[in-house]
């Protein structure tokens, strides 16, 4: 499951994109993890996430706050997405101090994430590094579309839906903010960043 590893885009656009997750090791620290995941989500919610969710339940935009918060299980994988380092750091500090048990993983620009970890007295333990895409790359959609769709690492956000949203915005059938929220809905885990999507949609409006 590398669902927040291969998010494509420029460093500038990735600088507003910091998904985090909490996960238990099944059979090691999973037995009492359900309430710990709820606590982790409660901490995430205090620090202005633009999206959150649980891989076992769904995301905020489809399931709503109460359902996501009250449905955690021993094999949940809970997520939150932050758009700046200050919120990320405050959240990580609180998660560290809560000492919940499940592992915590932060995605984002390594330079920025490691800077944040250093600032709050933490160190990177293990890494997941992306070498990019190989094979028949001519099958891929346009890069600008990919920068949006790869924010759902399970690829539940369709390139056709991105194009539909661009078309709807141009015809005043929706606004950029609502289009970004609609794109966030199919991403079950809640790791799709709607704020970054808004910015990317703005750029794409002139290209399609």
């Amino acid at each position, binding site marked *: 499951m590398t669902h927040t590893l291969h998010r494509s885009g420029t460093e500038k656009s990735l600088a507003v994109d910091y998904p985090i997750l909490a996960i238990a090791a099944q059979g090691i620290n999973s037995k009492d993890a359900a309430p710990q995941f709820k606590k982790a989500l409660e901490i995430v919610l205090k620090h202005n996430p633009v999206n959150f969710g649980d891989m076992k339940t769904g995301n905020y935009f489809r399931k709503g706050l109460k359902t996501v918060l009250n449905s955690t299980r021993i094999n949940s994988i809970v997520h939150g997405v932050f758009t700046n380092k200050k919120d990320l750091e405050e959240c990580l500090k609180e998660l560290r101090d809560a000492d919940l048990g499940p592992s915590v993983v932060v995605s984002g620009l390594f330079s920025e994430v490691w800077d944040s970890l250093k600032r709050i007295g933490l160190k990177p333990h293990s890494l*997941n590094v992306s070498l*990019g895409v190989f094979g028949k790359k001519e099958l891929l959609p346009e890069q600008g579309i990919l920068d949006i769709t790869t924010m759902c690492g399970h690829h539940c956000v369709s390139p056709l839906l991105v194009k539909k949203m661009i078309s709807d915005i141009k015809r005043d059938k929706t606004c950029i903010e609502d289009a970004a929220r609609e794109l966030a809905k199919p991403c079950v885990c809640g790791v799709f960043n709607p704020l970054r999507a808004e910015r990317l949609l703005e750029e794409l409006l002139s290209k399609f």
Partner: protein
Amino acid sequence: MLITDVCVGCTRCVPYCPSGAIALGRDKKARIDRNKCIECAVCFNNANCPVNAIQLEDLKWPRSVREVFATVYKEHKDTNVPGRGTEEMKTNDVTGRFRPGEVGFSVDMGRPGVGVDLKDAEKVCMALAKGGVEFEPLNPLTFLMSDKKKCFFSDAAPTERVHSCIPEFKIKEDRFPEVLDALMKVAKEINTVFSLGLCVKVNPDGTVPIMKYLDDHKIYYRPDGKTNIGTGKPAAKF
């Protein structure tokens, strides 16, 4: 997935399909191309069909494989882990799965968004197996292998197409060049794409051995990725 005859042809579901498998038929009703459909249920869960024409099917083997590799929230029956892979480095601070001097590979086949015929996944696994790679036993794809040494898949499975699947394995760091070379060669023989990820334990002094190798050999890696922050408990001993 099925679209029944109550469909009114509004086309609302068409753009939601990640595989582009839904189109309007001559009868002006939406139809699903069953070869392209990867049974992800994104249309069912998100398109809000006004007449509930989209229906889930009770899938039988081998088509059921598509659902296993597409439905995000369903856990694998043998691992209890939801999704298409394993916990990999996400719980490494607790499991110690990746030790110093080891490199984990995740070959995300069909990603981003292209999909993959399992015969192509089999081709990649067989190429890696020739070099002695042993696949992660808890990965759902490994469960499909009827011969785990040669990496033949179970009968009929190679005829299926899935959203994505992830051959996962780990090697000693000194084997990295030969394994990467094998992957680059087989990449030219498949009718899809893969996104390649590496998992490593950071050294106590903060250095990352594999990154030094990548830098020295001018191998591109993305500036962003995933960092396990090491706060999981009980902590694995390294």
